[in-house]
């Protein structure tokens, strides 16, 4: 009998305590000692028979190892929670400040952590790009982190290897490259704002003077920077202040739905649209765009215009407000409606010098950006509504040129080593570059990414990257403010950060990303009091005084002469490429929450579609769901058509991000790949699209099939004039029975009475609430087939209604969730009392009492109840179990569910208040949808407290209940929207609140 030799293991564990000890065991799990120990001891023990002593020793060893698989791990380094409880209580969530980088730019977050598991993301109120809100992407990021489809091993071709082996092999390759100064070494990344990474990349230059760093981000800011260069001679970044603007003109810019400042823009825009009691001081938003964006959907005046004609429109407006563009009048080349629009917009802009702003879209060419800059300059907006700052990105030069030169070098065979850092060029690089084809010429290809994706498949090495919730890093927001990204959890699947890869490349393989980030900031924050500053930065989620410096610039005098001519106005169809509102450029394709989150305007889920105006579609003889071939300059792709009223004629919108082949089980094979048509010639849009019906049909999963009001007063809105004439326009539209029109006494709600008010005038339809609710309440994903059957599970939906003329409709959003009716039709019909009312007016759903008759849903006038027709919740995938909110039941098959007003948050606040022997404070309870909303459209609280925000909102003259005539007495009420269209542009009658809206198919 051999002695069991635990000594080497003991040695490695010696001197470690607490979390460190567990971490060491983790490391130990892969170590040779342990492997040798296991191999040597366990089989032999079986062969030789186990005596009692050995058995006890083995038991001891396996008990020690049991900790490895059982629990999630906090990062070993010290992370700093944003909210300190007096003591750490099991079951009590902690919040940590961090940031989510998207296209390089950071949104500050506070992430909820339950016993080391990040479960929910909230916005960081101190962060300038969040202001306490987040978008749908940030909300869904936790799901991506736990995604079981993420790459989990380091792969060399088809072999699974360890990190040490990678470091060793890759180190050897790099050592070999050192001879010629790393001339063949290339790094390809997305947009980099991380100061640490930028410093590491700079250091890489020192080691390999001839190495090059390339950037490619499919949705990049090239044209904005090039436009700034045209206008100002240097690539400054622009910061727009929409709250200071009376007139806003968007030239195909979706500044509410994309871009680094989307959340701040939403907050600022909406702040001007909200009447205060009976007064309103509204701004006016003009949007010219081809297909719908959420920005266009909330415009006061929107002009559907081919993307290719935006330049002409911009130049016509520019010349009218006094920019010398040295051209003939472009308005003549546009339609009469567009000409009228140009005149009205130009007059409005000219009347608001210093308080207007013109914003150009990133899909538009540099010249349009330059014209926007020039207009702002001439209108005196710079310094007031627009600030020019030092570029935030580490390298604002053209990414298109960058990847073009990389591909050229790859083809020339001069690239020896290519490291692709968290970008997926094989999928998303311009089609004419044929990145995949060029990749074959690179000797050593290393991909670092979350998934074993299209690019990783073609690389020799694939290193899984760490999700931002698992990473130490840093990132800058749109205004330059830096956030230190701190991990909430040790990498779940052994992912590595970009910093670690760079450390390896710099020959410092032992340097962790924590050390890299800390070292960088030690250099910047100074060693005096560093620890305190570091902790404060981690705690606050922002590093003070890191905003980008203002960069005063002046307009190029010769702008008119250097401005390129507008493209010859091509007749026929154009195709416009935009990032998809829910899966973005494709990076979120494997996220079920985002796949199932309806596209804001079409309400399509799980697939993208070729979006066409109905008149364009009828000219082409295609209908919803017809599969067509899109042909552009010899390339073609097949996609299904979807008709959208208000889309510009002769224009087709193709959202990027679909047609993935290696996204994972969720995203593969959904929709069509618009990148296959997107070339260096037309990254934003391209003329000459040929669209041919194939005769095939595809079932698209749409969550809302009827978008008109059929004469019903469900959404109510008025123009500013109408509002001023009658601020109570939304009330008394329908007869609401009096409270005491009942045979029974009314229930007295003496204590707290929870209620909600939703400002439809503020809602921009961004979908953040849908995903926030899904994350908070453990709402399952059901899949495209079930959505097509009308079985989506989201507790809050955003109803989208069209009003007005079918060619230029208005859009009205109405977030719809359980109304918590005081006289709830669902409650009386439930045979088993599974849905009942509580003393504070909540309509409760008792899951374990529900037998699933669905009668409650049938009798719900708002149809906000959701039924588990199948076992939708994933009860098997271990990693997804970690994501769940422990405060919310995971529902089973055959059970009804619905919005609870986040009752778990109410209970938590109530318990806290009781412990402190005080009433619950107003604002202490924030529902998930309320907390996430960048427009602050949702207010929740105690309606019995006249001082509460919600009581004040309900006292607003715009307040009304949906379907009040049914005497349901909903606790959720709505504030009617007030829009400010230019009277000059509104010859047609806009539907007023009292009259309701005419419906059009």
């Amino acid at each position, binding site marked *: 009998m051999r002695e069991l030799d635990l000594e080497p293991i003991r040695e490695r564990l010696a001197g470690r305590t607490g979390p460190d000890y567990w971490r060491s065991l983790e490391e130990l799990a892969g170590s040779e000692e342990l492997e040798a120990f296991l191999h040597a001891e366990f089989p032999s023990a079986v062969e030789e028979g186990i005596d009692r002593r050995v058995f006890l020793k083995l038991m001891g060893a396996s008990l020690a190892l049991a900790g490895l698989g059982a629990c999630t791990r906090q990062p070993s380094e010290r992370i700093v929670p944003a909210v300190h409880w007096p003591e750490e209580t099991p079951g009590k969530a902690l919040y940590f400040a961090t940031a989510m980088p998207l296209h390089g730019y950071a949104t500050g977050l506070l992430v909820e952590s339950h016993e080391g598991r990040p479960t929910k993301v909230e916005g960081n109120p101190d962060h300038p790009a969040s202001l306490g809100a987040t978008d749908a992407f940030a909300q869904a990021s936790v799901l991506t982190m736990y995604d079981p489809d993420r790459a989990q091993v380091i792969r060399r071709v088809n072999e699974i290897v360890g990190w040490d082996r990678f470091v060793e092999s890759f180190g050897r390759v790099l050592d070999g490259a050192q001879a010629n100064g790393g001339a063949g070494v290339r790094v390809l990344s997305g947009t980099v704002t991380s100061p640490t990474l930028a410093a590491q990349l700079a250091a890489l230059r020192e080691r390999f003077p001839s190495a090059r760093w390339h950037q490619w981000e499919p949705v990049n800011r090239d044209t904005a920077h090039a436009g700034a260069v045209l206008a100002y001679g240097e690539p400054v970044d622009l910061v727009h202040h929409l709250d200071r603007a009376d007139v806003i003109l968007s030239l195909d810019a979706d500044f509410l739905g994309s871009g680094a400042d989307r959340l701040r823009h939403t907050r600022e825009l909406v702040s001007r649209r909200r009447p205060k009691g009976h007064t309103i001081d509204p701004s006016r938003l003009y949007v010219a765009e081809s297909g719908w964006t959420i920005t266009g959907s909330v415009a006061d005046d929107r002009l559907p215009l081919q993307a290719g004609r935006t330049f002409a429109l911009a130049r016509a407006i520019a010349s009218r407000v006094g920019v010398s563009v040295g051209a003939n009048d472009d308005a003549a080349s546009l339609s009469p409606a567009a000409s009228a629009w140009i005149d009205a917009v130009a007059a409005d802009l000219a009347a608001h010098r210093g308080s207007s702003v013109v914003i150009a879209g990133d899909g538009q060419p540099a010249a349009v950006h330059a014209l926007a800059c020039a207009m702002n300059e001439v209108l005196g907006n710079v310094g007031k509504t627009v600030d020019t700052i030092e570029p935030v990105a580490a390298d604002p030069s053209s990414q298109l040129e960058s990847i073009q030169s990389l591909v050229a070098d790859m083809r020339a065979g001069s690239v020896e080593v290519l490291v692709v850092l968290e970008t997926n060029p094989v999928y998303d690089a311009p089609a004419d570059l044929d990145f995949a084809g060029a990749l074959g010429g690179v000797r050593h290809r290393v991909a670092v990414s979350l998934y074993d994706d299209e690019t990783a498949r073609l690389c020799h090495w694939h290193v899984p990257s760490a999700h931002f919730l698992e990473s130490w890093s840093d990132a800058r927001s749109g205004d330059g403010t830096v956030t230190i990204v701190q991990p909430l959890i040790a990498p779940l699947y052994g992912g590595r950060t970009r910093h670690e890869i760079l450390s390896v490349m710099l020959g410092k393989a032992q340097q962790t990303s924590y050390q890299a980030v800390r070292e960088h900031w030690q250099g910047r924050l100074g060693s005096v009091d560093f620890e305190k500053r570091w902790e404060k930065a981690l705690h606050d989620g922002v590093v003070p005084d890191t905003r980008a410096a203002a960069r005063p610039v002046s307009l190029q005098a010769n702008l008119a002469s250097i401005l390129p001519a507008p493209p010859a106005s091509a007749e026929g169809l154009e195709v416009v490429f935009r990032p998809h509102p829910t899966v973005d450029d494709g990076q979120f394709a494997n996220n079920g929450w985002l796949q199932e989150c309806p596209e804001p305007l079409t309400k399509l889920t799980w697939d993208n579609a070729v979006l066409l105006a109905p008149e364009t579609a009828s000219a082409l003889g295609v209908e919803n769901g017809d599969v067509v071939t899109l042909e552009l300059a010899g390339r073609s792709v097949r996609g299904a058509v979807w008709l959208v009223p208000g889309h510009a004629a002769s224009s087709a919108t193709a959202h990027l991000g679909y047609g993935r082949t290696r996204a994972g089980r969720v995203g593969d094979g959904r929709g069509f790949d618009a990148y296959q048509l997107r070339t260096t010639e037309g990254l934003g849009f391209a003329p000459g699209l040929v669209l041919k019906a194939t005769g095939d049909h595809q079932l698209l999963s749409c969550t*809302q*099939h*009827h*978008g*008109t*009001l*059929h*004469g*019903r007063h*469900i959404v109510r809105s008025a123009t500013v004039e109408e509002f001023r004439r009658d601020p109570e326009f939304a009330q008394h539209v329908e007869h609401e029975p009096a409270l005491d029109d009942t045979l029974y006494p009314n229930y007295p709600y003496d204590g707290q009475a929870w209620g909600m008010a939703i400002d439809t005038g503020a809602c921009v339809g961004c979908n953040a609430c849908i995903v926030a609710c899904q994350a908070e309440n453990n709402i399952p994903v059901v899949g495209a087939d*079930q959505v097509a*059957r*009308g*079985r989506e599970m989201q507790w809050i*939906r955003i*109803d*989208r*209604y069209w009003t007005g003329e079918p060619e230029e409709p208005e859009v009205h959003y*109405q977030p*719809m969730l359980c109304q918590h009716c005081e006289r709830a*039709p669902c409650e*009386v*019909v*439930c*045979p*088993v*009392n599974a849905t009942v009312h509580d003393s504070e007016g909540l309509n409760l759903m008792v899951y374990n*009492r*529900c*037998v*699933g*008759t*669905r*009668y409650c*849903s*049938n*009798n719900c*006038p*708002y*149809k906000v*109840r*959701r*039924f*588990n*027709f*199948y*076992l939708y919740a994933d009860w098997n995938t271990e990693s997804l179990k970690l994501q769940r909110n422990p405060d919310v039941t995971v529902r089973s*098959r*055959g*059970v*009804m569910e619905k919005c609870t007003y986040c009752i778990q948050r109410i209970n938590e606040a109530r318990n806290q208040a009781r412990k402190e022997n005080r009433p619950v404070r107003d604002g202490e309870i924030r529902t998930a949808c309320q907390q996430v909303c960048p427009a602050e459209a949702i207010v929740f609280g105690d309606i019995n407290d006249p001082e509460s925000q919600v009581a004040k909102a309900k006292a607003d003259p715009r307040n009304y209940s*949906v*379907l009040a005539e*049914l005497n*349901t007495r909903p606790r959720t009420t709505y504030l009617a929207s007030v829009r400010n269209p230019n009277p000059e542009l509104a010859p047609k009658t806009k539907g007023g609140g009292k009259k309701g809206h005419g419906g059009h198919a």
Partner: protein
Amino acid sequence: MSDGARPAEATVVPPGAIIGPGQTFGSVTDKISSAVLDRVPRGWWIGFGIGLSLLMVFFTALGMLFTYGTGVWGIMIPVGWGLDIINFVWWIGIGHAGTLISAILLLFRQRWRTSINRFAEAMTLFAVACAGLYPILHLGRPWLAYWLVPYPNTMGMWPNFRSPLVWDVFAVSTYATVSLLFWYVGLIPDLATLRDRSKNILGKKIYGIFAMGWRGSASHWHRYETATLLLAGLSTPLVVSVHTIVSFDFAVSVIPGWHATIFPPYFVAGAIFSGFAMVATIAIPLRAAYGLENFITLKHLDNMARVMLATGLIVAYGYMMEAFFAFYSANLFERSMMHLRFTGPYAWSYWLLILCNVLIPQLLWFKRVRTNTIGLFLVSIVINIGMWLERFVIVVTSLATDFLPSSWGIYTPTIWDWSTYIGSFGLFLTLLFLFIRFLPMISIFEMRTLVPEAEVEGGEEHS
């Protein structure tokens, strides 16, 4: 039937007679009991085989349902009820004819009811059995169906007595119980006859047990008559109450197209309408197959057709009033619902319903149709379809397009919806064929009261 069950002496039944000429106590007893006691005709095996095959379809559908959940059906939000509830209402409606015939017509001393009474009651029972399954099957968690019943439990929970679904539990279970009792009590004298005539030992024993020692003494008959009368009295309100309560499932709700005060009478009339149609659908082929023209005469068919015509007109009035109320209420949602019924995605079902339930039954004004077995059979089939469509229109179209257009949606039944429906015919037919095989499908002792011999002795009391 080719194998000798048909009587050679079949004669023309005079018009208006409710029993053929030349029948005696003995011939009636022979004729009716022979279907049970003689060799099983091949036709029975065919019919039973079909029933059993469909029953297997039913079990398969239930297997799918229990394994995967109600998601196998096409139901969704907003249409949370589909074929499950349609079939429930349809089956339970069919049952009503049996109760009407056995209870109300008994109280009104309608002697023509005698020959169709027994199997109409059996039909009621089997239809209620089919119907009663659906409310359980339609649950998301059917294994908890007993929570709808008020029973003392550790949870300290009662069902919600405000919910029409709980009323349904009482209505349907009472109905099933009373119908079963009524049917069984009515069977006792005939079971004794079968006991006495059965040549099979096992048959003698089993019939004997269920005959409960019936000897036909005067005191037996006295108690029998009292019990029957009491049960008839008990059943009578059920004819009205059950479907009234079923209609409350809809009428109590707020959904346009459901929330209607006319529903109770209109549902009851519809139930009797469909019930008589089903009795005719079954009686006509049965009568031909077993050669029962002497017992189920053209007079019977004529009477049933008249009831169908009358209740059909009430139903048509109901449809008219629904449309009128929608118009006259000036309620936007009601009007829109009615408009969408006429022109919306389910307009086909509405117009087909009008064709089946309103237009085609008008043929019953003609005596030629009423007394033409094939014609009446076809009309009764059409009415069965029409009444099913009526429930489809009510359940589905109202839910599909209710208040908020944003949540409107289309329900399309899946193969499992249909197989659960078609499969329930399997249950129905299997039970029906077993009944025909093992029990007298026409009440022997009551038929005996109709023959001239009974007249001589002066009526029903001393048969």
